[in-house]
């Protein structure tokens, strides 16, 4: 399974945010989409999730050699600011979510199994989402893609504002499910990218480029990335 981006471009007014995005993401890997604030990471995700329109280009998904256009049903998008119904409990929300997506469910797993999976305890399940911390809301968002297991999972800055424990739990979960998915994870935190992901893709100056894996082991890795980002920045 592969996610192929071809010539994706997007400008806002006269500011070109994505100039020519070409990339192929592979199944079984967690990709970090690394870029500075305002580099266009969220814009790229918003385009893939059809939240905004692209100016040009296309995204394809190949499954078993068959290539088709990426559709919204193929992906789950975890927003950096969770949008959830405040006055439902976490349990109710997931229950309704499962009712709606009955056809995509794994019949053996119960709703409580799912909550155990993401470590939300019995009493928290029945609290209003309104009372949830951001970490818990993020876990609920994760649960949604754990339940329907779409091929592509986009996570927009998922761990940036989470506490250590939740961040570790989410990392563990992502590692567990990665073999069946293409997971792309945007962040502006270098250490996080290095720590969790199999590959690092840098978004700078509107272009995506893959970092060489060998570089990750290089002791001067951090300096190199900083140079890379700064260099382009000063050229601009």
């Amino acid at each position: 399974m592969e996610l192929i981006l071809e010539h994706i471009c997007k400008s806002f007014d006269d500011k070109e945010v994505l100039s020519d995005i070409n990339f192929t993401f592979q199944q079984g890997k967690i990709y970090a989409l690394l870029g500075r604030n305002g580099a266009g990471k969220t814009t790229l995700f918003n385009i893939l999730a059809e939240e905004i329109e692209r100016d040009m280009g296309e995204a394809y998904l190949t499954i078993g050699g068959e290539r088709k256009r990426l559709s919204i049903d193929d992906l789950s998008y975890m927003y950096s600011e969770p949008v959830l119904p405040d006055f439902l409990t976490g349990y109710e929300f997931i229950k309704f979510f499962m009712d709606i997506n009955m056809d995509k469910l794994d019949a053996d797993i119960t709703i409580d199994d799912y909550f155990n999976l993401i470590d939300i305890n019995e009493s928290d399940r029945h609290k209003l989402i309104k009372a949830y911390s951001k970490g818990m809301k993020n876990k609920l968002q994760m649960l949604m893609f754990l339940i329907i297991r779409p091929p592509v999972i986009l996570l927009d800055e998922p761990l940036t504002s989470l506490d250590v424990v939740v961040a570790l739990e989410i990392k563990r979960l992502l590692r567990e499910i990665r073999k069946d998915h293409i997971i792309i994870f945007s962040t502006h935190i270098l250490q996080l990218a290095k720590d969790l992901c199999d590959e690092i893709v840098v978004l700078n100056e509107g272009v995506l480029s893959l970092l060489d894996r060998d570089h990750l082991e290089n002791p001067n890795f951090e300096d190199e990335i900083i140079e890379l980002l700064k260099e382009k920045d000063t050229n601009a």
Partner: protein
Amino acid sequence: MLKALHIINRVKISSRLNSLLYFIKKLPILKRKLRTTNYSFLKLKGAIGIISIPYNIVSTFLKGFLVFFTTMYLPSNFLAKEKAAIALPTLIFFFYFVLRLVSSYMLEFDLNKFIMVKQMRMNAREYSLATIFPEEILKLISKVIIFILFLEFGTFKMYGITLAISIFSFAMFTEAIHLYLFDKFDFTIYKHNVLLVILYLIIVFVGYILAFGSSIEIFFMILTSPVFFIVTIILGIWGSIYILKYKDYYRVINKTNNIEFLDNQKELTKDIYFNEVKIKEKDFSDEDLRIDKFTKKEGYSYLNAIFFDRHKKMVYKPMMIKSIFIAVLFIIAALVTELFHKEVGPIIGRFSYESFNMFVFLMYVLCNSQRLIKSMFYNCDLSLLRYGFYRRGDALLRMFFLRLLRIIYSNLVPTTVLVLGLGYNILKYTEMGFSDLIPIVLLLYALAMFFSVHYIFMYYIFQPFTSSLEVKSPFYSFINFLVYFISYMLIQVPAPSIVFLPMVIGFLLVYTAIAVILVYKKAPRTFRIK
């Protein structure tokens, strides 16, 4: 579609019941009893889900009735009683047909659509159909009832039913037209907010002008003509078929409810409550920001002096405006009395002596510091309360009294102008002597003290704002509303005999004293960022 309808209803009813329980859990007494109750009565909610049907019928009816009654029925029957037969059909035409033309449920931004379709992945077409048809049909039923009860025009007895059907059909036609425009030209009226507001205003304005200012019977004739009925039915059938056959509802919901718009919306409404107290950098000149201005002051009084100096616009400017306004009114009254109408002065004198209950509302308007309180929170306490040194009991109390003094000062000036003006009229134009004046003067000052203390007292005891800038304590809003309501209602009742005044004054002074003592005792615990 039935399954979708069922789920939508259950989500709605769960949300409503949860909100209700959430509210009940905040009430005193019940709060403790329900502390352990959680929201897990899902099974029960499923059963209660069935009551969502009568609930929806009743609430749709009430909403529809309220709109009809306040915007159409009441105005046409009271304002234009003799012309009600013309006014009412005109208003019905403008509100139910013309206004409907510029609104579309399908294209409207709605968080529920975002959550149900984009987050929970409900089929967009099923969602759209399962909301539009039942809702419009409920509206149809409630209009039939309303019209049968209230419509007195029409050519035959059950005319109300045909009119309700026309309105329903026209609504379906309108929705279809909006869908069509969106499909073909990507046009949605909700992208043009300014245009929308202007259109709304024009339609309402023209509607009322024609209803009350003219004797045109054309709208009555249109609404009661069989041709109109048949035309709307045909349009409605076309509209319904178009809606049923329309395929790309996902695109409609996706484009009209996207995450960027939602984020912008959140950003806009995030601290909207505090919009009026936001400080702008350009409001201050270098002169205003000079550091040597308050060098004589230290610590908290330094901080407080700066705060009030930077809030001149909010405190002293209104104070001056109010004082000058009152003074000018009294000067004009005096001139009018001396030069033209001798009875004006005595009327003011007698009025202020006999209708002193009016002063409560007058002083409410004059001494309201709600805005300043908001500003204290947003521009000062929100950030400083995070620090230990600011939260210490003695520091809080010191700030409280420093602030209170400034508020009292800003209220005393206009109150004194008012006292002088009223005193002048009472002494000069009535038989009342100086000793009769004393209770009135005391009342005015006691009210000024009361309103000065009340708001800041409430603020320090309830501290109703959260760090995410919401008003959390329902009591704060409720008590403030109650104070407004009582002050306002007092205008309506006749003033009790003047012998009651000492009791009223006594109450106000005791309240003020208790408030100050309570702040002293409790504020170090209650004045926190929530």
